């Protein structure tokens, strides 16, 4: 654990995340037969938002969003990027699971004080979606932890480096597939873009955010993308020994996510939950049973 890594890791996640936001807009534009914005557009947007004079609805409104990104930064510190893993040995996957809570919780509290029903509906949808995918995610992570007999994520990566990727290990194939199926829900892209749903509830929790708050929410979104995908890469695609290779893997998974985003409509909340409790949960459950039996 170096102090330099503690600074480097969130910075890297931020840069990659913002780059991904730009890239996703570009790729989406190309699927739409458009030219698309410059890849730096999210940066410009964020600068613009920082310069705007927004409104604040109270102290919790300010603090919640800060808390949310702080949570994201904390998660980033626990996830290994290649060989950079500043804090990964202070509680393992269980801590990651719990700290991943802070980001949505912060947003939920912050936008709750905004007193707008749209944001409340957005939060309720977000929490329900979380409940939906968490069902499978927990089974998947438990299968991993039972298989590798450790709760440390660095150790799981190290074991994969020695042998094969988790995705290609017999007992973990089904959980791997389940993870791929719930990945859009974790990233919050369509068909699971239900918590923002601009056409239904005016971008949900972000409805009252403007200026700095919106910028912070955007940054939080960037972090969330990187966290969601790099967890998958670390757990199932063997992580990586160096940074470039790691982010290449992350990029590939992300592009897959964008394609899914492009060709599906948004589901209703109820349907999303039903789907998440269905096939992915079943696969993950079967995977866990197999893992325990072997």
């Amino acid at each position: 654990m170096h102090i330099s890594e503690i600074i480097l890791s969130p910075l890297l996640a931020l840069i990659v995340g913002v780059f991904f936001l730009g890239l996703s807009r570009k790729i989406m534009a190309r699927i739409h037969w458009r030219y698309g914005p410059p890849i730096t557009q999210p940066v410009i947007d964020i600068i613009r938002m920082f310069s705007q004079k927004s409104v604040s609805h109270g102290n919790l409104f300010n603090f919640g969003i800060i808390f949310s990104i702080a949570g994201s930064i904390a998660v980033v510190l626990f996830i290994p990027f290649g060989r950079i893993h500043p804090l990964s040995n202070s509680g393992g996957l269980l801590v990651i699971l719990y700290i991943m809570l802070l980001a949505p919780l912060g947003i939920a509290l912050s936008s709750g004080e905004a007193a707008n029903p749209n944001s409340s509906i957005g939060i309720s949808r977000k929490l329900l979606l979380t409940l939906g995918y968490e069902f499978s995610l927990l089974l998947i992570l438990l299968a991993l932890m039972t298989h590798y007999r450790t709760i440390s994520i660095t150790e799981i990566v190290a074991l994969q480096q020695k042998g094969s990727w988790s995705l290609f290990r017999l007992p973990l194939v089904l959980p791997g597939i389940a993870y791929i199926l719930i990945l859009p829900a974790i990233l919050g892209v369509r068909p699971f873009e239900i918590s923002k749903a601009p056409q239904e509830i005016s971008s949900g929790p972000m409805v009252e955010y403007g200026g700095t708050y919106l910028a912070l929410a955007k940054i939080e979104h960037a972090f969330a993308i990187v966290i969601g995908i790099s967890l998958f890469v670390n757990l199932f695609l063997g992580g990586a020994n160096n940074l470039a290779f790691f982010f290449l893997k992350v990029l590939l998974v992300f592009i897959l996510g964008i394609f899914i985003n492009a060709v599906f409509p948004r589901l209703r909340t109820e349907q999303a939950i039903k789907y998440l409790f269905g096939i992915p949960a079943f696969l993950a459950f079967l995977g866990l049973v197999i893992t325990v039996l072997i």
Partner: protein
Amino acid sequence: MRELELYYGPQHLGMVGNFSITLNVEGDRIKKATANPGYLHRGFEKLMECRTWMQNFPLVCRINVVEPDHIELIYSMGVEKLAGIEVPEKGKYIRSIYLELARVASHLFGLWAYSNMLGFDTVANWAMYHRDLILDLFEELTGARVYHIYIRPGGVRRDFPDGFEDKIIETLHTIGGKIPDYNSTFFDNRLFKKRTKGIGKLDRENAKKMGAVGHAIRATGMKYDIRKIEPYAAYDQVEWDVPTRKGGDAYSRLLTIRDEMIESVHMIFKLINKMPKKGTVYTKTPNPFKWKIPEGDAYVRCESSRGELGLYIVSDGGKKPYRAHFRTPSYSHGLTILENILAGEDIADVGNIMMSLYVVAPEIDR
């Protein structure tokens, strides 16, 4: 405090047009929906009384921005009926082709709006692009993209330019060639079906009672189309069919729109083939500043892309209409039907249902 009053519009991404629905919701279920129109009221019918018969043309087309052509047509038809003007044969054909093009453009706009409501950006972009190709045709023909003012009493303003028919055919082939793409990404998409099936259900009796017209009533299985019942322009000259569906839900309405679009494209091909090559396109009318129309009243109707469009017009023998009243499809769709079928649906489906009924706000308010 059981109820939440949620405003859906006017400033809302899920609202196409300046219209507002106040939703009383419990959880995410709508208990009561109240349409709140009036944001676009300009007093059309009053303004028309202050303008001469020909001056009214630029005005009436602005009643419906999505598809102004049918409003032009119906006003022309009203004037023709009052003044007893006949439309030459070629004019009738050109009117039909033009109106069907407008119908396709309008349905593509509807597809944009609908897919946008579902968060389906990709199809929305494609549909809007294809609509633009048709608008290009209009621009070449009339000089304007949106408000063409092409139809006039006694026919149309000018003949097709040279080779325009080929351009129409080419454009429609481009669009028609993408129909399989639309089908595979949109209409046959499993999630699309999940989102639309059983949503906004309307059975035939209720639909009739509440004044549903156009694709909304055709999606309940009723073959009701003014073009068949009371043919105008050149619709009785070619063979064509009225597409219907049984379901009565948003899904059936969408598929009806798609089938109608395909039917229109086929109809345009047939019309172009059958269109007389020579002849005038309009009958001469008197000097518009001095044009007086004999006393009398007339009710005319036509089938716009959203359904039956009617006009009751009264002349007192003067230079200006004495009274004009439009019966627009969005009025019954947007106020009566929408309010009735929204109750019991999800918040998530409001825009979805509204666009499946194809409510265009300016038509309601006028």
